[in-house]
């Protein structure tokens, strides 16, 4: 058994909150640079240049890449040989969010009681915490600040088993088309298929933790990812929705077995400010 003080979780969350929101990941940067070659629209190219320049400014001046510093979603992969000391995991994560969002001058975007008292909690808590138990004695902390604009354009559909692969493709295309310029394209499209109503959405969300260019390990699914990405980029939405070839930088699919009667499909849209940072404790 390895003992780990929950303060370590707090510290990791605090630091990852600031880092994720101010320093863009290299895979995103490279994808944006590469997309400059593919983009034919002058207005679209100008937007891509702005986004690259924006990342430089954010990193140098230590200000957020995007003013919407998101709902803080935290994924914990906890080794089963760990014993935590010092309180509750949810509290430790929230404490980290509170500290990171305050010290890092990040925007506080969470309101309490969505229906009855939508008053800002003023520290961006609570975070959404997904915890998974895994073998070993390490903890992997992954933090994704998820913006509201792209989350709003996400959809879930309980399809018919007869809809099949073609049905999922149509659903993805409909979703991205309807989103247009709203979710700050170029986007990343996260797709979850199978499981239950809620689990399909979770699959779509965790697909967005992948690095751009990382294909599903199942060859057939990887082929679908390539094909559907091509289709999405035929929509013509382009950077910032001004029209162009680069609507999406990537498309990820995660699957899970499904019930014989159901065929849930979820599309979670990620924006050009795709922010994910990981640390192993």
């Amino acid at each position: 058994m390895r003992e780990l003080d929950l303060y370590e979780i707090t510290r990791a969350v605090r630091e990852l909150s600031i880092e994720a929101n101010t320093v863009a990941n290299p895979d995103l940067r490279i994808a944006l640079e590469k997309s400059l070659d593919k983009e034919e629209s002058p207005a679209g190219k100008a937007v891509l240049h702005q986004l690259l320049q924006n990342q430089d400014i954010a990193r140098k001046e230590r200000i957020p890449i995007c003013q919407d510093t998101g709902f803080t979603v935290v994924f914990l992969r906890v080794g089963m040989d760990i014993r935590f000391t010092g309180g509750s995991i949810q509290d430790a994560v929230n404490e980290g969010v509170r500290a990171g969002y305050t010290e890092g001058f990040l925007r506080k975007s969470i309101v309490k009681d969505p229906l009855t008292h939508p008053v800002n909690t003023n520290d961006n808590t609570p975070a959404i915490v997904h915890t998974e138990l895994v073998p070993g004695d390490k903890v992997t902390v992954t933090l994704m600040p998820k913006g509201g604009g792209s989350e709003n354009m996400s959809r879930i559909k309980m399809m018919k088993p007869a809809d099949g692969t073609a049905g999922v493709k149509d659903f993805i295309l409909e979703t991205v088309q309807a989103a247009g310029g709203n979710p700050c394209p170029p986007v990343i499209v996260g797709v979850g298929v199978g499981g239950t109503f809620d689990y399909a959405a979770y699959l779509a969300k965790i697909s967005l933790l992948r690095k751009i260019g990382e294909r599903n390990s199942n060859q057939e699914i990887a082929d679908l990812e390539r094909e559907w990405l091509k289709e999405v980029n035929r929509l013509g939405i382009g950077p910032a929705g001004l029209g162009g070839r680069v609507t999406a930088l990537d498309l990820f699919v995660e699957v899970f077995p499904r019930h014989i009667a159901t065929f849930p499909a979820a599309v979670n849209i990620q924006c050009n400010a795709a922010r994910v940072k990981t640390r192993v404790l």
Partner: protein
Amino acid sequence: MKTMARRIETPLREEIIKTLHAGDEVLLNGIVYTARDMAHARLKTLIEQGKNLPFEAVGSVIYYVGPSPAPAGRPIGSAGPTTSYRMDPFVPVMFKAGMRGMIGKGPRSEEVKRLIRESCGVYFGATGGAAALLSGSIIKAEVIAFDDLGTEAMRRLVVKDMPVIVINDCYGGDLYQEGIKKYSTMGKS
């Protein structure tokens, strides 16, 4: 290639708005007011009750933004546009109050586009996600109303060469529709 961006001063005058066309790149200079969901709801109530407004509405440009907090030495934190469709229901009353321009991201409703034509207004797009870049064109920021709303408070910004692009002009031009039509290859082989 890239056309030269034009410098425009706020408040917007009708003669100027009439020279703007969808696709024009513009550098905005002068005063711009921020308001998003909650501030709009409060402004609507004030307008309907015939109360005084906390800003110079005539010819005004409203920027849909909820900035991040200003660190020491900066007038404002990162400040990119939020999605505009959520403000669509407030556009009629804002035009009535004298607003002429809006800055945001994403398409507007048919009603808003009609009002932009009829009221001789303009909708500018700013690049969503380019919030640190856009922040650099804001040289002054002060909260003028609804302080309790935090990031959603109404602010008076002074902007210098803020880069925007005309999405909807007063002639019915719509850059989103035209741009996507031009580059979509759906249904084509």
